[in-house]
């Protein structure tokens, strides 16, 4: 039983797995508008309005028809943490959560994607579970009962400890904040009426549905 709740800010990162880096492609990363592969973690923020619990029915914003389901794991901070080292980084983590980081499809990471990533309900998130060995954890996403993605955290560019080191170098993470370890580039899409289930062995599962599309 983990007492720590998700109470703060949720931070996420893209292009943190080799499969996504290959999918977007070295040529694209070298060309405009990126002009080079990312050096620091390529981050975004999911504010409080995005968080919903397991079982939620998520409405998509006006004009949106489908949503990318970015299945990931969040590191829940157990204390304020800044300037962490690889040796002590995971000591600051109270537990982990499964998260469905929903994004309206966007194939360019050039500009901040507020509408795409911060609409109400765009972060279904599970209850906090004990930290397990994440080095080869497999996260499975099912949409309407069909497996649409299986990804292993063994493929991460920055593992959880390194991600904490590189993020906390310039910003303090507070108790209750969450750092998502990365989502797939152009993740599988769900539409209105879809039932989504995200699971990982030893971490349980997270379920939600896409309720509909606003006229």
């Amino acid at each position, binding site marked *: 039983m983990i007492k720590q709740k998700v109470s703060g800010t949720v931070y996420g990162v893209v292009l943190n797995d080799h499969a996504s880096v290959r999918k977007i492609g070295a040529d694209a990363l070298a060309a405009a508008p990126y002009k080079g592969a990312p050096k620091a973690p390529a981050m975004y*923020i999911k504010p409080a309005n995005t968080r919903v619990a397991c079982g939620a029915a998520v409405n998509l914003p006006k004009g949106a028809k489908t949503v990318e389901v970015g299945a990931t794991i969040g590191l829940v901070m157990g204390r304020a943490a800044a300037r962490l080292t690889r040796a002590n980084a995971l000591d600051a983590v109270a537990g982990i959560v499964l998260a469905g980081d929903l994004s309206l499809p966007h194939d360019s990471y050039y500009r901040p994607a507020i509408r795409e990533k911060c609409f109400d309900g765009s972060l279904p998130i599970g209850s906090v579970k004990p930290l397990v060995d994440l080095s080869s954890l497999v996260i499975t996403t099912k949409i309407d009962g069909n497996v649409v993605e299986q990804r292993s955290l063994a493929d991460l560019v920055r593992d959880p400890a390194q991600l904490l080191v590189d993020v906390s170098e310039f910003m303090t993470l507070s108790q209750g904040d969450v750092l998502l370890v990365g989502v797939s580039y152009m993740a599988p899409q769900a539409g209105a009426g879809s039932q989504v289930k995200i699971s990982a062995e030893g971490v349980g599962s997270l379920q939600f549905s896409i309720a509909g599309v606003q006229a």
Partner: protein
Amino acid sequence: MKRGRIAFQGAIHEVTQAADGRVQLADGRLLNEADVSWLPPVVPGAVFALGLNYADHAKELAFKAPEVPLAFLKGPNTIIGHRAKTRRPADATYMHYECELAVVIGKTGYQVSKAEAMEMVAGYTVANDYAIRDYLENYYRPNLRVKNRDGCTPLGPWLVDAADVPNPMALKLTTRVNGKTTQQGTTSDMIFDIATLIEYLTSFMTLNPGDIILTGTPEGLADVKAGDVIETEVEGVCCLINTIDDDQTYFATV
């Protein structure tokens, strides 16, 4: 009414500005504004910032003005109060201030029309949205390493009631570095005005009391160095003071 938050004598106080400009506690005690520890005037909820929201600034940065608001988010780690210190990392070669009118939301709203948007506003304060351009990368630009560093967004000192700012779209913005004016502009030059920004954000997300929108900055950016005192002022709102520290001073242990 101008409201602020300070730490004084071991407690956090909600204060107001007395007629003589001093800081007034609820029990009537009066303090000089330079003698108290200022906190941000509101506990920040979601903090939005606007890129390229002044035509002259977009031009200065060699960008076309955006067609939809270029909004990005900030975490609470970056917000600090009046008269605090902001760190300039040793490897930075270009760190600049950005004087901005900050809009504080006072109501919960979703899908708010432009006509009703200003009713969402509790009041206004001033932000200095520092950027360290050395860390700029083209991923969700401006990226967090540029714009969400600890203590890089001073806010305050006062939250001025919306009723006391009858025309927020015609306020002069001024930045002074060590007393010399380096940036001047007016909120009338915003590309997306406050009502449009509120309509845009609430078209897909709920805004709540305590959420803050930093509305962008006009042209006139300049590099700041350790020891520089930066005053960012918005006419009729307040003047926010911040001092730059180098790594050695910032991380010095007593």
